[in-house]
């Protein structure tokens, strides 16, 4: 077990290092530099050179890379070019919002996806299954920003049930603040869930159909177990394993989806930070945010692997 955990951790560190290195060099391969987008005109070449020097971008690439890694190991993500603030502070400021948004969407996708997948599998071939499959496939084809805008127009502007953008009414306090938080959260979470739900429910349905045909389920039936117990206790436990892996993988997509969702809903998370930083070529912020994303996804996958090993007695460590 220890050996497994160690090798998994080593792989994770390696993956993160590759992510850091490729982000670092890809950003610098982009045409232009952070001064390109600052202001048109009125910025003399000398001023641009001075700014690049301030940012340390006048040094050779490998030198920048080595000093970046050195700082990184000490936990220093650098200073934002635009905001003159430590990147760590900027990201930590935004991270809770993305965790809340992506976390709620994650939980809700599982909570809704499981009953949908199971119900479809149990009613295989019937109209309910067909309807759920149809829903799953169309949800798969949805594009986050379009869903987001549609939800905003309909539930926000037409019906007026939900606020247009933002994460909370900053004037509320105490319980009111939590209610306002939840109120603002509904539409962004809904748009993420709608997009995620399709693949998840469909995978679960397929697994479930397979599992329900297994001998042990028939054996359970022969032992006189109720249908509900057969499906939910014996069936789901086995069908959920591949779906778990899928969720681990989808966590990356979820955070990626947050970039677009947060932008449309004016939600102050890391996703929107990335959107803004890319527009300004603020290298330290983009790098910092990508490292954080890479770590999150790698960590989640490592965790899924371990959880899988624990949950599945067929895998012996």
């Amino acid at each position, binding site marked *: 077990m220890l050996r497994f955990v160690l090798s998994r951790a080593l792989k994770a560190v390696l993956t993160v290092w590759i992510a850091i290195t490729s982000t670092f060099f890809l950003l610098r391969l982009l*045409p232009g530099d952070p001064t390109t987008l600052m202001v048109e005109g009125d910025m003399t070449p000398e001023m641009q050179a001075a700014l690049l020097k301030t940012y340390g971008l006048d040094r050779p690439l490998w030198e920048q890379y080595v000093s970046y890694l050195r700082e990184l190991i000490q936990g220093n993500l650098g200073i934002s070019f635009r905001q003159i603030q430590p990147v760590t502070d900027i990201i930590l400021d935004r991270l809770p919002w993305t965790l809340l948004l992506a976390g709620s969407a994650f939980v809700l996708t599982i*909570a809704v996806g499981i009953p949908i997948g199971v119900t479809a599998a149990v009613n295989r071939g019937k109209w309910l299954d067909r309807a759920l499959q149809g829903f799953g496939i169309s949800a798969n084809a949805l594009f986050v920003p379009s869903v987001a805008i549609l939800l905003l127009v309909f539930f926000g502007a037409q019906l007026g049930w939900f606020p247009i953008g933002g994460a909370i009414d900053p004037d509320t306090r105490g319980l009111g603040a939590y209610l306002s938080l939840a109120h603002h959260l509904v539409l962004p979470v809904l748009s993420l869930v709608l997009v995620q739900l399709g693949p998840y429910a469909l995978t679960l349905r397929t697994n479930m159909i397979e599992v329900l045909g297994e001998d042990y389920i028939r054996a359970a039936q022969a032992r006189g177990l109720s249908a509900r117990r057969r499906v939910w206790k014996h069936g789901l436990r086995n069908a959920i394993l591949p779906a778990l892996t899928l969720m681990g993988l989808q966590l990356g997509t979820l955070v990626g989806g947050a970039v677009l969702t947060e932008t449309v809903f*004016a939600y102050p998370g890391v996703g929107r930070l990335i959107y803004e930083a890319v527009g300004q070529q603020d290298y330290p912020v983009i790098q910092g945010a990508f490292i954080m994303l890479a770590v999150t996804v790698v960590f989640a996958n490592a965790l899924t692997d371990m959880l899988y090993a624990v949950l599945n007695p067929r895998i012996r460590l």
Partner: protein
Amino acid sequence: MAVKGRWRLAVALGVVATLGVSGCGLNEDNNSSSGNSSSETVLRIGTTTDVSNFNPLQSLSKTDSWILNAMYPHLLRIDENAQKAPELAKEYRYEDDGKTAVFVLRDDFKWSDGKPVVADDVKFSAEKIMEYKLGNVAAKLTWVESVEAPDATTVKFKLSQPYAPFAEGVGFWMAVVPKHIFEPAGDLSKFANDSNWVGAGPFVLDSVTKGQRYVMKRNEHYPLAPGGKAAVSQVEYRVYPDVNTMMLALRNGDIDLMGTPVPISAAKTFEGDDKIKLEKVGALGFAHLTYNMKNKYLADQQVRQALSMAVDTKAIISAVLQGDGQQMAGPISPIFSEYDNTELQPYPFDPEGAKAKLSAAGYKDGNNDGFFDELSFGVACDQSNANITRVVQLFRESAAKAGIKLENECVERNTFLTRTKNGEYDIDASQWGVFDNPMDQLRSTYLSSNPGGINYNLLESAEMDALINDAAGTTDPEEFKTKIKNIDKVVHEQAYLTPLYVENFQFAYNASKFTGFVASPSDLLGMVTAYSLAQVTPVK
């Protein structure tokens, strides 16, 4: 049932956990401020992005300037007609044959901590900008040898040579900061100025919730507001990165004004809404096609004139701007009415005439493919600019009728800007952002020394240099105007560029709640200048 119960518990725990994690993000206003009492009137404005730099001497961002302009006074402001009007300065004049610019300040501006705004604050701001080469104002102070503040209301800039629009440029662009707050901060290139703000505009920042809102409280002494202070007690900027979301927020009453202009294609959505009013202003820049003089064929005046005759600007204005734009002839925008050059006419759209002109100049279509053999050019543009991308398509079609082959080279924005910077294009199709005066524009765009890096023609002409430098040193206003108009004419005849249009911007606000905005041209500050916000009154 037990399984179901456990699931419920797990879901509940998950929700509680995520709420708990994000709890630290709540109530994070970094200064106090909350709870609006009923007597307060709050004006809520939509902005597109967070403030990136609170130091007004350093910031280069348009959206930063919306908030900073309301806090830090400028010597001059820009009025509805693109003219410079007094703000902190009552008046300005030149002495010493144009080698000294003198500003006379008002004596009734006050910092929000009660101290008066004095000439020393202006001197300090200018000197620090020069010392640390801060922001885009440093370039405007190039000619300054020294700054003097002989008394509390007089500031003198001693210049190395006369430069006609010096006072206008510095007066409009330079923010004045409180010396007693900024001096103790030391190195101003590293000063973030991100808390405990002291300003002398109509509003001063009070609290910031990053990613969400910026709350500004009224400065109780603002002499340019009727009644000595703004009628609105609080201005709140809310961040909407997506303009569609911002429009919905305005319609829904979540905000009262959009800081950013409404896209032309979307303006119709407000038509049925009688609460929302649109205010139209002109631009300080314009869209243009600029010809790279390093290209052998584009260096030929006949070719450039023929290209200008192959652009149907009227059709472009009606197709791209739905008719909502003005035609131009020379490089000086019609918004600067004092330089009005009515005798100049845009080149007529006449592809056949262009073809005849090129044949007369000796160009041939040897292989009979309908195109002149040598005349094939790439048109570079930023593909994120939908209007310009459309212009390039239309230009390509109409130029083909004149026998000129064009390739569409519209690329991603960064790539485009880099190519522009390196001169890697034949024809540059783009939009000038903001030129607040024609002299600065002509210097930046046509001087061989290319001081602003935007001489997209890569023109090196001794004649143009002489004309521009001569005008720049002219201090007599009438003579100056005549010289500027002459350069306008020369550029037109040379067809160094084909100006396409000056577009209009439309700003949307909730007229059932607020009135009195004073719009300034362009989307640089639009409706949110300090002066405009100070004039706004709630609708009773």
